């Protein structure tokens, strides 16, 4: 298992050498969304608290770094951490409200969606951060400003982020914190009876997850040199974040990564095919069909099934 992971990492590390520019951009997306899915996986997969507002943390992280850079000249490498910290604080507030008032299932979904929508509306109407037009970052190509002449830099940053989040989740699975989360997902009342402080652990999962998601905001802002409220705070991005770990296997270590390797290329292909005919958003139909298929046939996601196949092939 460890060898498989190191082998996979090694292949990913040398991959850019053989990729053309388009394939490279697809792989950057695969890794970036795998990272976002892994960050979400902590609270949504392991702790079973279905946040569908995680785009808000991407937006908060991105805006924080970009505004700090514009107004104080702070390098986005540091702004990234500030963005993560602010996302963690707001994630903590939302978690506190949701968990203190015992919002579960559908009600927690609504709370998180509403939170992201409020963020979008605030950003759209706040002229200091660009209002509805958003923020544009002048391209200098200076790595100290997180800007690169060569897109392979983005690939390696995305790879490092994904490896970092996966290592965190791997460590979490082996500690009390992560073990408690898997039980909280199953039955919170039983957890309380067994001495598990459920509120504190759900809150911890939410804060860690929103911090990591916040880091991704800076990546997004500087990779595209722009931030639009609708793109970074909108429901479509939240759906992109949620759907990969669900298809791959929510609450499993490799679920978000496998999910992203399945879905990101599919989304690219359907964009390429249907986009020419003016069918924008066709990838959403692909998502919908896949989601229904997963819920019906693989409710645990792809990873457990793949695991069984691998074990059967290599006894």
């Amino acid at each position, binding site marked *: 298992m460890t060898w498989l992971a190191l082998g996979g990492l090694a292949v990913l590390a040398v991959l850019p050498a053989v990729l053309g520019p388009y394939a490279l951009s697809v792989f950057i997306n695969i890794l970036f969304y795998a990272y976002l899915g892994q960050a979400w996986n902590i609270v949504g997969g392991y702790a079973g608290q279905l946040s569908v507002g995680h785009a808000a943390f991407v937006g908060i992280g991105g805006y924080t770094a970009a505004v700090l850079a514009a107004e104080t000249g702070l390098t986005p490498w540091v702004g990234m951490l500030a963005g993560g910290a602010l996302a963690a604080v707001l994630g903590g507030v939302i978690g506190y409200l949701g968990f203190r008032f015992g919002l579960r299932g559908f009600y927690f979904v609504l709370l998180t969606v509403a939170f992201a929508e409020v963020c979008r509306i605030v950003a759209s109407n706040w002229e200091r951060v660009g209002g509805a037009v958003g923020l544009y970052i002048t391209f200098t190509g200076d790595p100290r400003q997180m800007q690169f002449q060569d897109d392979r830099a983005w690939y390696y940053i995305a790879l490092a982020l994904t490896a970092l989040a996966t290592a965190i989740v791997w460590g979490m699975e082996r500690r*009390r914190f992560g073990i408690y989360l898997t*039980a909280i997902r*199953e039955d919170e*009342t*039983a957890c*309380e*009876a*067994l*001495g*598990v402080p459920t509120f504190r652990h759900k809150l911890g999962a939410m804060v860690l997850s929103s911090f990591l998601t916040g880091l991704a905001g800076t990546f997004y802002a500087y990779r595209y040199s722009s931030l639009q409220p609708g793109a970074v705070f909108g429901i479509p991005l939240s759906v992109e974040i949620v759907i990969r770990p669900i298809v791959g296997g929510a609450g499993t270590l490799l679920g978000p990564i496998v999910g992203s390797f399945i879905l990101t290329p599919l989304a690219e292909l359907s964009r390429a095919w249907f986009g020419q005919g003016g069918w924008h958003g066709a990838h959403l139909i692909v998502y919908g069909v896949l989601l229904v298929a997963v819920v019906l046939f693989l409710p645990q996601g792809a990873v457990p099934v793949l695991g069984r196949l691998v074990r059967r092939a290599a006894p």
Partner: protein
Amino acid sequence: MSLLEVRGLSKRFGGVQAVADLSFTVDEGDVVALIGPNGAGKTTAFACVAGFLAPDAGEVRFRGRALRGLAPHAVNALGIARTFQIMRPFPRLSVVRNVMIATLGRHPDPREAEARARAVLDEVGLAARAAVPAGALTLAERKRLELARALGTEPALLLLDEVMSGLTETETERIVGLVGAINRRGIAILLIEHVMRAVMSLARRIVVLDHGERIAEGTPAEVAGDPRVIEAYLGEEHAGAAAP
């Protein structure tokens, strides 16, 4: 000082007075049974003691400390563990993981917690099922898992809510033996049970509830001869006779 002291406990659900001015105590190392017909308020009383329900009135003290306002996990940390009448295993977690959730509270290192969990599974006779998902257990095994998890929190007082109902006679006898052995290790037990033979052989004192009120209290022999108790149970049996 009693280990557990319940005084004037009351809890109402809408129009139903589930528990009314209930008082009793459990001493260190004691075995007390809480009996009474269905709907008498036994499970509700448990939930109030363990912090799952806030009583409307009255007080619960454990080792002299008032439990009012404590979350269930905090009550558990003080040394009170309950089982659920309607069992609540974590169905997708393995049996040993289920018990680890209980042992991790006092043993934060997962390896230690797992070793403790395996020891508890040995004690309740579930060691052979350690790797199975809890959802695959039989009813009798699930009852034992419920007991194992409560034990895993290393309580001073164990609240057992009908851990024998629905079991065969042999299975019941094994649980009775197990509960006796747990008590001999110094763990006090408060037992809700319908299986009268089990109650009579385990309990040193019995508290009888009917319509939320305590109608009798005493040794098994005293309670068995109490006319009010006989009436409460006869009433139920007459009602039960109509059903198959």
